[in-house]
């Protein structure tokens, strides 16, 4: 809901010239708060997973039997690199890079996100066809939900990025668009950090 900004009130009245600066800062601050709330959802899912990977195996496979590190490592690399490329994208924007360049790095970022997502879906598909569906056990329920929740976030990040590129064409690189790009960046980096926790907890500790 990026269109919720307003610059009513004191900050604006106090310094009219810097009104837009304040507005952007405030919206980004609000988005940080939203991310904190979103992190609670991930924390709960991880806690639930930590319980289910021991006590929820029932008649299904254990994490040790299910996971290997190969694909998840490639997946992880794709996402880590995407966070780096997004960094280049927003830093470039800050130092006045051309729109073409900004869009270019955003495309690279989203493509890496899509690769990540593709591998994740491939892996889900593999497990699924082996009969290891979420309906089999508490552990598999927790696995699909936790990793899937992250995947849904990445998906919405990609859709958001594509829509934002369309808006860049429409509006040009104005303050509003820059602010939206910075917020997408925060979202994307948060997903990367969450993924590091997921990779460690689910795959690394699951295999070891």
């Amino acid at each position, binding site marked *: 809901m990026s269109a919720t900004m307003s610059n009513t009130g004191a900050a604006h009245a106090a310094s009219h010239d810097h009104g837009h600066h304040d507005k952007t800062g405030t919206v980004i601050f609000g988005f940080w708060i939203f991310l904190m709330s979103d992190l609670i959802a991930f924390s709960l899912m991880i806690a639930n997973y930590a319980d289910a990977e021991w006590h929820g195996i029932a008649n*299904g496979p254990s994490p040790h039997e299910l996971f290997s590190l190969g694909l998840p490592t490639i997946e992880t690399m794709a996402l880590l690199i995407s966070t780096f490329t997004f960094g280049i994208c927003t830093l470039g924007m800050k130092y006045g890079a051309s729109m073409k360049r900004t869009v270019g790095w955003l495309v690279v970022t989203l493509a890496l996100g899509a690769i990540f997502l593709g591998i994740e879906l491939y892996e889900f598909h593999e497990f699924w066809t082996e009969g290891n569906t979420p309906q089999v056990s508490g552990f*598999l329920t927790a696995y699909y939900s936790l990793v899937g929740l992250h995947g849904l976030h990445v998906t919405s990040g990609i859709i958001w990025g594509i829509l934002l590129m369309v808006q860049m064409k*429409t509006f040009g690189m104005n303050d509003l668009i820059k602010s939206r790009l910075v917020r997408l960046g925060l979202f994307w980096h948060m997903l990367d950090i969450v993924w590091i926790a997921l990779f460690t907890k689910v795959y690394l500790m699951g295999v070891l």
Partner: protein
Amino acid sequence: MSILGSLDWNDIFIVPFFTDPSLSTGIAAGAGGIVVLGALAVMVLLTVKGWWKPLWSNWITTLDHKKIGVIYIVLALIMLIRGVLEAVVMRAQQVSPAPGFLSVEHHAELFSTHGTIMIFFVAMPFLTGVINVVMPLQIGARDMEFPFMNAVSLWLSIGGAALVMASLVVGHFETGGWTAYPPYTGIKLSPNEGVDYWIWSLGLTSVGSTLSGINFLVTIYKQRAPGMKLFDMSIFAWATLCTAILMIFAMMPLTVASLMLALDRQAGFHFFTATQGGNMMNFANMFWLFGHPEVYILILPAFGVFSEVIPTFSGKKIYGYTSLVWATIAIAVLSFTVWVHHFFTMGQTAHLNAIFGIATMTIGVPTGVKVFNWMLTMWRGKLRFSTAMLFSTGFIFTFVIGGITGVMLANPTIDFATHNSLFLVAHFHNMLIPGLLFGMFAAVNYWFPLCFGFRLDEKWGRRSFWLWMIGFYGAFMPLYAIGLMGAPRRMAFFTEPAYFPWLVIAMLGALCVLAGLTAQIIQVWVSVKNRESLMVPAGDPWDGRGIEWSLGCPVPEYDFSTIPAMTSREPWVDAKEAGKRVMDPTEFVDIHLPKPTGMPFLVGLVATLFAFAMIFQMWLIAAVGFVAMWVLVLIRSYDTDWEETVTAEELREGYEAHKRLVETTPQIRLDDEFTTKNRGLIMETQV
């Protein structure tokens, strides 16, 4: 499966009455009929009076924080009427000869909807509404930081409430209480749509509350008047800040737990099932990770209200400002450390119970600090017992009793004997009726003129207070007694004769509460009728202390003509002591206010459609609704012309007009406060 999912004719409210006529199905059909007829009556009224258009342009599309607040409060009051009526029906059920006139399922639906409605659709909208109206005015802001998102929160909450109302007409609500513990609420034991109603109505409103929390927090951090430090804020603003933080962190566990339950039910997942590795304790933990902070989300704003009302009507500044603020912060932090006390008996070790028991008792300390702050504020003050003040003093007295039973329940060994009994039910009603409802009633009586320009009728207000107070004691003290005698909660009927006299008293108490609510409706009616004589156009009808009282009543849409200079914690009191009758203006500048838009209403409407479709498994409609919701947001993101300008000249005119009005309003004495002489601005200020 058809496009209408699991919906069929038997779900329509009057059909069960014809297929299985009984008093129980008759009451259900009657309740559904009231909803349908009520909706029709409102529509007819709107059409006859030609109010559709003003309703749309002045209220539904508004982004003004005060109007949004008023809509929240209206929602809360409508739902309160339903909640109280349900309570009365349940009390009547328990005094009629066993097995009573309600079926066991119907009684279970009643206590489930009663709890769900009272927490999520009375308490939450009520406090959110009061915060919306008051907080920006107290920090010298002109609106919430995100007015559009504010309206989206509102319409999501209304959507949730509409779904609970719809469950009277279409299908059933759940029977597992407001906490809806699985595995009972799993698909095997609760196969109908009831639990899904609970999940999706809460889903809408919990997202709304999370967004509200973000809005309140950012507004307080970023929109305070220049010079206002955090420790210059009113206690109510502090309470709002702490509540906002709780909302941001605590609503998510509810959202997550209820969506997991939805996946268990509809997709065959095993989060909480009793077989195949599900763990229902995860639900209990997550629910109360939300549920306990929620208790303080409910209570802190009311604490804030009392901290405003008591100084005003004692003619003194609040005693121990700093200790009161730190007590509020301490309560907010501790609220995350006690959730296990909601299920001491569900299997964890005695050591763990002991830790959570001690943590729970610790909360009594900062709360006790607050009680002393309020009492010492009244000490040697010149007390004036307005309706708001009556509710505040009634609160202190009653809340302490509830607090004492709370400390008793915090002891796990006592809890083992009293859990799931009516003693517990009496305890939490003893906390929430004074600790939430009385606070909100005080807030409405106190701040009403800010929104509407006239005071509420004091005579009916005082009557409503006494009826609520007596009704509360009548309805709940007996439950303490029979709870200790062993009466379990949530029973459709009792066969123990020793309970009967107590249940009769409780029934009479419930009727007294109903009379109190009726008195409040009469109070509003009488006040609207006599509004000319109750007008306080000069503002500040109670010799108030906060800067919200420096404004004329009703407050103009832009709130402040100039942002007040915060020279101290109570600049309005300083100004009055210096003999001024208006605050000195700072600098008149052009300001921007958000334009009205119907988009938040549409987002709420489509989200409600989505949720309804999810309840009845109409997957296609649900998908369309979900996509449509985001398309609306996308359309809004293309709208860059969302503000309109109020010029400095208009603001100056507003200020001059207010000043002229104030100067021509005769000064009155404090003793005439509740008479028609009060046209605002009482000038007798004590220290």
